[in-house]
């Protein structure tokens, strides 16, 4: 039975499922990473995703314009990011608690709007699969890597771009400085509040896209509470990935592939109880997290309020 897992169909299935499941995590985690690198922990990702997911779905349903739907999700994510930044940067509210507040807001609001504006579960025509010219034709490889919708490619493209911005640009340097030593950054004329506003709003935008990747690209439907905790996994993945884009990519892929693997284990009837199978991705992630030798150190000023002295 176990040997059934080594067939080409299964391996292709696991990798392509894994890539699809990874997509929302990448958007949400990379966005969250920028916020955390500047010192703001946003636990409201799940709420931003839910609202982004609904708005993208609704705008697409009404206008049949996917890009408009995506833009609307980015907008609503940005607004929620703006509110989060205001509450934590200006009002100095505890980041953890405010994040939970925004999560509840996003969940309640998306549900309310869904009932008032849509009323029943409906489908929508979302982003279609694009086969990359030439590459998409390669047997096996093409099927696994080059036959996805636009948002999947965007998510994976985001990883090196985020790495570049964070490590090779002045903006990235400012973000890191604000997250490590805001007093020093401030004394050098970097606006701590400005940078934190920027990263938290950016995080909201990416969370909005993460939600949209579910409702108008991967699933093409909206259902209440459909993110099912993915926003919280996304926050965990930032820690798992040691606040580095490629670390996050690795963590997201590991979690998603094991999730895909456990589905195959159940489908092939390998005698492992379903309850145990669904726990596999969580257990493995925890194991890797505890056993990994190079334990990353988080940004020093993470969750700390910055107040200018004097």
């Amino acid at each position, binding site marked *: 039975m176990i040997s059934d897992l080594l067939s080409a169909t299964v391996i292709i299935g696991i990798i392509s499922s894994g890539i*699809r499941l990874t997509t929302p995590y990448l958007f949400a985690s990379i966005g969250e990473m920028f916020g955390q690198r500047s010192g703001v922990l946003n636990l409201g990702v799940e709420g931003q995703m839910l609202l982004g997911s609904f708005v993208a779905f609704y705008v697409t349903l009404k206008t049949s314009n996917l890009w408009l739907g995506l833009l609307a999700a980015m907008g609503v994510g940005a607004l929620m990011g703006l509110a989060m930044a205001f509450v934590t940067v200006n009002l100095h509210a505890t980041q953890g608690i405010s994040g939970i507040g925004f999560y509840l807001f996003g969940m309640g609001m998306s549900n309310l709007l869904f009932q008032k504006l849509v009323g029943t579960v409906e489908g929508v025509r979302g982003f279609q699969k694009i086969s990359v010219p030439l590459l998409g034709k390669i047997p096996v490889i093409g099927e696994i890597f080059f036959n996805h919708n636009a948002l999947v490619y965007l998510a994976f493209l985001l990883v090196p771009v985020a790495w570049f911005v964070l490590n090779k640009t002045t903006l990235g340097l400012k973000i890191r400085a604000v997250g490590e030593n805001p007093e020093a950054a401030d004394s050098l004329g970097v606006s701590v509040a400005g940078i934190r506003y920027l990263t938290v709003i950016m995080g909201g935008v990416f969370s909005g896209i993460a939600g949209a990747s579910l409702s108008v690209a991967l699933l093409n439907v909206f*259902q209440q509470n459909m993110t099912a905790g993915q926003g919280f996994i996304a926050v965990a993945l930032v820690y798992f990935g040691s606040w580095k884009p490629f670390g996050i990519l690795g963590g997201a892929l590991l979690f998603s592939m094991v999730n895909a693997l456990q589905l195959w284990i159940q489908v092939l009837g390998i005698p492992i109880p379903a309850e145990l199978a669904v726990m596999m991705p969580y257990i493995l992630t925890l194991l890797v997290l505890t056993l990994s030798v190079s334990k990353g150190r988080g940004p020093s000023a993470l969750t700390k309020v910055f107040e200018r002295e004097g």
Partner: protein
Amino acid sequence: MKKVFTLVSVLLVVAMFLGACAQTPEAESPATGGETSEPLRIAVVSPSSINDLAFTQSISDALIVLKAEMGDDLEYAFTENMFVVDDAAAAIRDYATKGYDIVIAHGSQYGSSVQEIAPDFPETVFAWGTTVDTFGLPNVHAYEAASDQGGYVNGVMAGMLTKSKIIGVVGPIETGDAKLYVDGFVAGVKSVDPSIDVRVTYIGSFSDVALAAEAATTHIAAGADILTGSAQMVVGAIGKAEEAGLYWFGTQANQNAFAPKTVVASQVYHWEVILREIISLHAAGIMGGHTFSATLQNGGQVITINPEIELSEEIKTKVEEVIAGINDGSIVIPKP
């Protein structure tokens, strides 16, 4: 000053969230006009939302039917999204305090809450589902759906339609109504041809639409040509069946219109059948102690075949035979 401002704004934000979460859109305004008799007042507390195309929608639809029948003689209130059991308990107690005649706790997870609250309100009828346990309390009814019956009928159709002889099931958590449906479905398929491979996956969640969709994709990649599943997260799986041009069998609420070329038939719950019995018992002064089951025979569940899908006469006849057989007891659905 700043601290106060912070506190106030945080509180305002939180209050807004709670307002958004705990709204009761189905609250009916009291009957007006020259009514002499008091209307019957029913309240429902349910875990997901009234348009989930599954469990909560089924009870909401039942109340809409009753309201249409009874008009001003019925007044009802609905509190949805009570997935947190403590919140549900507060809502149940609140309705009882407000003097509702019948309080329906529509979720098997609400059992201990009902057990605790019911003795405090001997004048209120509590109906709890889906279960068979009334705790021996004089004012508690229990109700359940014999969802294995509809599952069996769906399974028979699926067994006759499959060409690849592989059928995939996307389940939430292996418990309660979902497990009963899945077990009945598997038995139905096997009654047609024991060699058909029915593969069951449980994804460990009632809400993870993405994982349900991947489970469906996995079944399809592994050769399944017919799929079914239970609970509100299956909408993702139905979408994948639709994309692949395969058939789906639905349960809990009517999913036929959601994917008209894909959903062959849905097992639809008609809780109004059971609620009518509870209402007439209440009128006769009987407050509890009964256990009800929504079956094909009493009309508490109905197999609704999608008219958009063309089924052969052979299948249609077989469905009628099987339903008749379940009703007269000549078909006994085996328990796994």
